[in-house]
């Protein structure tokens, strides 16, 4: 086990990956890019002993899509690796091989935000129903249900 995780300690360890900032007393946010996220997770696992994935959160801030990986370890400091993706073609490399619990989060984020995880071949529906139309991502800010589209439920007459 390594010593207390301070901002200076994190900055010293991950200089070439992204910029770190202290957002709360127990949370350090590292802003990185999609190209560096796999290296960032590997080095956070090895150098900062963050071996647990809390969650992957996705957000639509209006201009871009945001993807944040929250990792923690026995020191109970949370490291948030944030990356921004363009709205028109949001793509990020998969982390399910180096971080196995992220597989189910990636499928959910693909369902609701339409972020494509490169290297995953099994991004099938997990939260939405099977007959949900393609290319409709309900948690994006600019999404509204189209009037004539069938989104699921019961087809045909009511009982």
């Amino acid at each position, binding site marked *: 086990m390594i010593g207390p995780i301070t901002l200076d300690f994190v900055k010293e360890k991950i200089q070439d990956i992204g910029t770190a900032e202290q957002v709360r007393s127990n949370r350090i946010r590292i802003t990185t890019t999609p190209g560096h996220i796999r290296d960032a997770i590997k080095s956070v696992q090895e150098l900062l002993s963050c071996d647990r994935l809390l969650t992957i959160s996705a957000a639509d801030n209006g201009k871009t899509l945001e993807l944040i990986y929250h990792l923690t370890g026995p020191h109970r400091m949370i490291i948030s690796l944030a990356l921004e993706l363009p709205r028109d073609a949001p793509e990020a490399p998969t982390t399910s091989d180096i971080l196995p619990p992220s597989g189910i989060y990636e499928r959910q984020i693909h369902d609701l935000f339409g972020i494509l995880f490169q290297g995953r071949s099994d991004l099938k529906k997990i939260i*939405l*129903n*099977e007959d*949900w139309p393609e290319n409709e991502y*309900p948690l994006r800010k600019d*999404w509204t*249900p189209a009037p004539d589209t069938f*989104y*699921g*439920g*019961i087809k045909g007459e*009511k*009982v």
Partner: protein
Amino acid sequence: MAVPSAGVSQRLVNWARLKSPWVTLFNSGGCNACDIEVIACLMPRFDIERFGILVKGSPRHADIMIVTGHVTLKQASRLRRVWEQIPEPKYVIALGACGASGGVFHGLYHSVNSVDSVIPVDAFAVGCPPRPDEIINAVVTCLNLLKEDIAHGGKEWRQTNGIKNIKNTNEIREATL
């Protein structure tokens, strides 16, 4: 369905149906609070088994179905399929504000907003969640409906006599005002 001049065996069946309704529970996407209130009905304080109301696991054994929660798009077809498996005469109770109108989930991208847009509902027990005595009251309401249906020889009289199932939230609002 029995007519008033039914035989002895049919009268025996009707008596058994009224004395011991079996209930099945279906969660169509709720938060589980209503299900916990149904469990509270089974606990010693209310103890609905002393009235002969049994909660069964299979819809094929049940007379009354209690549906909890707003209906998600994924659960709608499952709810319809489970409802079709219940033998006639069957009665449906929609539990909670969600079962009546979607509750806090009304208008969500993934909700059909009420149970009665999928299956016909005979009684609503409203509350978030409803108390166990209100759930028992809803079951007794269904039993009274069953009694009247036996007297009329079927469920059709409720449509023809103008006493129809409440169809949408506006009618619920008018009925409560």
